[in-house]
């Protein structure tokens, strides 16, 4: 797994890339939670994720919960098909705010 962090209109965007599995999900979790602890709004870009396992999804869940608690904005953007089917399995596609792109999210905010 690789990841990339950038700033976009008041959001921090974390792009996850490759396989998010047990071996690297603790790292992804740390990135997500650190970012939110700093009080930054967060979008996680899953477009380049070819595989995500439940530990990876668990990190996203934890992130979303933390964002809600701290009243921060959180969302998943351009979710790849592979990631989407895993989210759907636990019906999390109906729980997370999911957007086609960062732009779409920004428009919704307006």
């Amino acid at each position, binding site marked *: 797994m690789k990841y990339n962090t950038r700033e976009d209109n008041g959001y921090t965007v974390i792009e996850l890339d490759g396989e998010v*599995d047990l071996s690297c999900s*603790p790292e992804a979790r740390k990135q997500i939670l650190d970012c939110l602890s700093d009080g930054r709004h967060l979008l996680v870009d899953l477009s380049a994720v070819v595989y995500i396992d439940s530990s990876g999804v668990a990190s996203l*869940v934890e992130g979303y919960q933390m964002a809600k608690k701290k009243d921060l904005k959180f969302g998943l953007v351009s979710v790849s098909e592979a990631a989407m089917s*895993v989210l759907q399995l636990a019906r999390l596609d109906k729980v997370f705010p999911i957007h086609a792109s960062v732009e779409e999210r920004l428009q919704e905010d307006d």
Partner: protein
Amino acid sequence: MNHTSITGRPAIEVKDLVTHYGSREILHGISLTINEGEIMIIMGGSGSGKSTFLRYILGLGTPTTGSIKLLDKDITKISSSEMLELRKNMGVSFQGGALLSSMTVGENIRLPLYEHQSQLNEQTMRIMSRMKLEVVNLGGFENFMPSQLSGGMIKRAAVARAIVMDPKLMFFDEPSAGLDPVVSAELDELILKLRDAMKMTIVVVTHELDSAFKIADRITVLDNGHILMTGTVEEVKNSTNDRIQSMLNRRPSNEEINADEYLQRLTGM
């Protein structure tokens, strides 16, 4: 490694598997290849050797001869530490669920994580186990003891435990045994969902025709420790083999009797 659906690459390769129980030969040289992302149903009546076959591909017994390759590793040859690594990629749903009765449902599901992924944060483990409970429609049953659940719920909880590590290989032993038709159909749906979402390779041992036809990519029919045939649902349905037809039509088979052997069994001489 990629995670696309049926790639045609073998996930499980069994060659010339011969097993004994005491001095009795149970499986007489079974060879079978199961591809990645495939749902393979192992069918057969009781005494056909299907449960024995499952035990051996799960590495619960040592075969007399033959090789069993799971994810390119021959489990009859690898070291115990390699086997341990392999086991993290295998999930098994046993006939009766086999949840540890001394633990809550949640503790049962987290057990593989505690044992093998202690680098994970406690909260992550909890979320993972709860997610799996949601997958099998048992959200909120985390703190129940297995004895407080119905048979169908125990089976689903056992599936949740089996998939908590997101295994690549998943095995079901008689998933619909003892379940009412509705619950059994739900379990079939779940098996299909798991394959599609998690790209698992799934082996189901069953004698339930309806459920087999619904979920199978291919079916292997075992009889008396031999493979009668391996093929798609259509191929099995159209088979001209008597034994298969009598199984499909639920007719008792008219077995020929070897008079000498039969007499010997009766008199014990």
